[in-house]
């Protein structure tokens, strides 16, 4: 158990920022996403982030440079992407945490990598 969670954390099978919903699908937990963003911890293993910072997302998120999943270690991102074929990994040195406006239909915050690395 880590950071007060009542369950164990595993970067792939039980990542910190996700919980399994009633339909069996993994869903991001809003408060933990914010915690990861501001505390600068990995959304998968919940340990302090390293360099580079990685994000996972589908093609649309990559094209928009706006990701819903929190920042990750590079190795955690690669492990998560290996089990979710639609996800790609993007590396960055920095990111912006963008809160939703009242006009946004999707009221989840997004992460915008602001110093993309090759």
């Amino acid at each position: 158990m880590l950071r007060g969670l009542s369950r164990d954390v595993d970067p792939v099978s039980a990542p910190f920022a996700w919980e399994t919903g009633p339909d069996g699908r993994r869903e991001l937990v809003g408060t933990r996403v914010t915690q990861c963003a501001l505390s600068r911890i990995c959304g998968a293993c919940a340990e302090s982030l390293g360099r580079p910072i990685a994000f996972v997302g589908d093609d649309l998120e990559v094209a928009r440079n706006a990701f819903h999943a929190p920042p990750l270690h590079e190795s955690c991102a690669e492990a998560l992407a290996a089990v979710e074929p639609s996800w790609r990994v993007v590396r960055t040195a920095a990111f912006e945490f963008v809160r939703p406006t009242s006009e946004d239909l999707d009221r989840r915050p997004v992460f915008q990598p602001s110093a993309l690395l090759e």
Partner: protein
Amino acid sequence: MAISDVREYMHLTEEQVEELGRELDQIREEVEASRGADDAAYINRLIRIQRGLAAAARVTLMVTPHSRKTRVPGAVLGASLLGLAKILENMEIGHNVMHGQWDWMNDPEIHSSNWEWDTAQPAEQWKHSHNYVHHQFTNVLGYDNDIGYGILRMAREQRWNPANLGQPVYNALLATLFQWGVALHDLDVEKIRKLEKDPAEMKRQLKQIVRKGRNQILKDYVVYPALSGPQWRTTLKANATANLTRNLWSYVIIFCGHFPDGAMHFTEEEIEDETRAEWYLRQILGAANFEGGELLHILSGNLGYQIEHHLFPDLPSNRYGQISVRVRELCAKYDIPYTIGPLHQQYGQALRTIIKLSVPNSWTSDDKPPQPPAKPDAPEAPPVDKGRKSDAERPPRRSELGAWSRGKQAS
């Protein structure tokens, strides 16, 4: 109070709040677009100066104690240089680096992921207690543990307890031992007291604190004094003085950020639903600036621009001065309070609050500025409904953290 109850904000329509948010977004975008070599040069120069000061201090304290002529002036000079170095490292460098203000440089050293600062609190715990808990729940009673650091009653909404009579003493102790108070901050004393703290998590955090605290003590009170040989006592005293100076300074600066009379407290329970513009508003209303020259701002980590820091915690601190001009204009345009005053006034107000709130509310008067009258052009107009619940519409609630209770129930 809930955001919905804040008179200073009730005159704004939802569209105006969103427009304010867009104007603040515009400021952010402009600063991000113009970040570059000059900013990088600023932080690199500051780190060089800080390290130079620290090295000069350590050498002075190693060399000067051995002669009677130089012992006292050397100790004074060494303690001053070291205190200055610690202040710069904690305030303008460490605090801001750990916010990610310089991550965009992709510098392997100056990055929020791996910066460890010269104070007893482990960086990881600071990033949780400060970057997340304090910046996300700014001045929200029952959430933001920076409101009195778990030992001081700082808002009239918090229930008075006879233990609060000791506040002036607790405050003096907190100021003197500030780095150790901060070191224990993320443990969340209130959660421990209510037996809500996960024992495994507490053990993990305590291990980190003991390891970091031990290293700090070894460095300042064993290794460097030992390098001064037989005159180790002089160096030890000078190091203790430098740490005390840093403690008092950082305490004063931090208490000026949210406890002067104009800074508001909130009991908002719908933070998760807050829009970006509303979040901006809460940051403006809950923070307070102080005035001063460039050197004062650098030594205070640019936290004299506390409002701008809370609006844009991850923009480079050297830009807060220029940002403040525009934020102040926006506050005037939208008729929102912008709390600012000289440092001595802001700290004086915070100290007065600490002393006044050591006794029950009925014994003292409230020093918060009077709420503004309704707009002259719409004297009878009801507050604009923004679809958010006010305090009156919420079920009664009392949290034992800071033991706050609402309104008239507070004794």
